[in-house]
């Protein structure tokens, strides 16, 4: 990881001092263990705050829409796919971007780490050789990296950036994974069971919209839940309204979601929000052989029509 950090600083410094970009978007050291803060550097003297580690889980594609300047941005596999998606959706121009590709060793989940030490207070972490050493007052514990990966990272099949102008390392091998075991379980339920399952899943939701705001796809100027003329969804914590919000948001992300995990990472009450988006991801894969954000040049399946699109549901 230190090599990545070193290299990001070098590239950032070069790009800024040569005037190739106006700003660099990357991460700086967090103020608490297991965190890193996205930051923007515009002065070559400021590049030394940039770091890269296993807690850089925030999707930096989130910071690109509506920017007018030339930007160098650090991109993991999923970030780069969301950037490709942004380019396809005209949220940013490819020629504004210098993408600093980071073949991703997959990010760790701070809440899993905390749970692995029974919620004890963690004051520092160190990472080496696939292991994470966690220390706090009166304890030290070594965790296997694989056991504390973010859920989406554990099943990630695209760790390498799909777009890049600079690379921090050679591409890493991609894993073969069955991504949809949990989704198949839900699919096997009867409609009634499924409804009950979703109600239970969302029972703790506080409608803070952190999932939506963390999502790089949710850049609509006015979200449907914020519309007042007409008001589509009630604003209290009524369970029907809450379900409606999550389902509709997931549908808006169909064929666009890269399973970057931003929603789940942001959820303050630990809801497995990806269950919704992953179902649609699975459908897009099976019906259209489509994975989102693999190229900025191919139109996504939901904004194109082909005569051979699957149509069995039409009676």
């Amino acid at each position, binding site marked *: 990881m230190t090599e990545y950090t070193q290299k990001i600083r070098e590239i950032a410094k070069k790009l800024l001092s040569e005037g190739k970009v106006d700003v660099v978007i990357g991460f700086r050291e967090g103020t608490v263990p297991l965190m890193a803060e996205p930051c923007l550097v515009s002065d070559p003297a400021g590049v030394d705050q940039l770091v890269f580690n296993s807690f850089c889980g925030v999707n930096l594609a989130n910071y690109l829409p509506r920017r007018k300047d030339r930007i160098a941005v650090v991109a993991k596999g999923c970030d780069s796919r969301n950037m490709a998606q942004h380019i396809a959706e005209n949220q940013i121009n490819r020629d504004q971007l210098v993408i600093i590709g980071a073949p991703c060793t997959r990010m760790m989940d701070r809440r899993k780490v905390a749970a692995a030490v029974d919620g004890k207070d963690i004051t520092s972490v160190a990472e080496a050789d696939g292991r994470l050493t966690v220390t706090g007052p009166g304890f030290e514990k070594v965790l296997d990296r694989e056991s504390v990966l973010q859920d989406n990272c554990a099943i990630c099949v695209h760790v390498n950036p799909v777009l890049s102008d600079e690379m921090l390392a050679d591409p890493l091998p991609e894993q073969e994974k069955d991504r949809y075991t949990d989704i198949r379980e839900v699919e096997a339920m009867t*409609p009634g069971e499924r409804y009950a399952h979703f109600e239970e899943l969302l029972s703790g939701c506080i409608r803070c919209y952190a999932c939506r705001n963390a999502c790089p796809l949710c850049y609509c100027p006015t979200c449907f839940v914020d519309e007042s003329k007409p008001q589509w969804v009630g604003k209290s914590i009524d369970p029907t309204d809450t379900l409606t919000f999550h389902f509709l948001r997931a549908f808006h992300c169909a064929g666009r979601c890269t399973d970057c995990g931003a929603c789940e990472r942001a959820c303050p009450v630990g809801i497995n929000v990806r269950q919704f988006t992953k179902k649609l991801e699975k459908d897009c894969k099976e019906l259209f052989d489509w994975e989102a954000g693999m190229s900025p040049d191919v139109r996504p399946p939901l904004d194109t029509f082909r005569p051979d699109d699957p149509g069995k549901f039409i009676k």
Partner: protein
Amino acid sequence: MGIDPGRLHFSWISSAEATKFVDVATKVIEEVKALGPADRFVKEKAQVA
């Protein structure tokens, strides 16, 4: 989502196919009536407690 499949119908009907529209609409109504009142995604009064 947990919606009964019988409550959701897709059909392709051209503006010229009035009879088909009537047939489909009648069939849908019959099927939905047979299922009885929906109890999912139904909001009576906000449950906030």
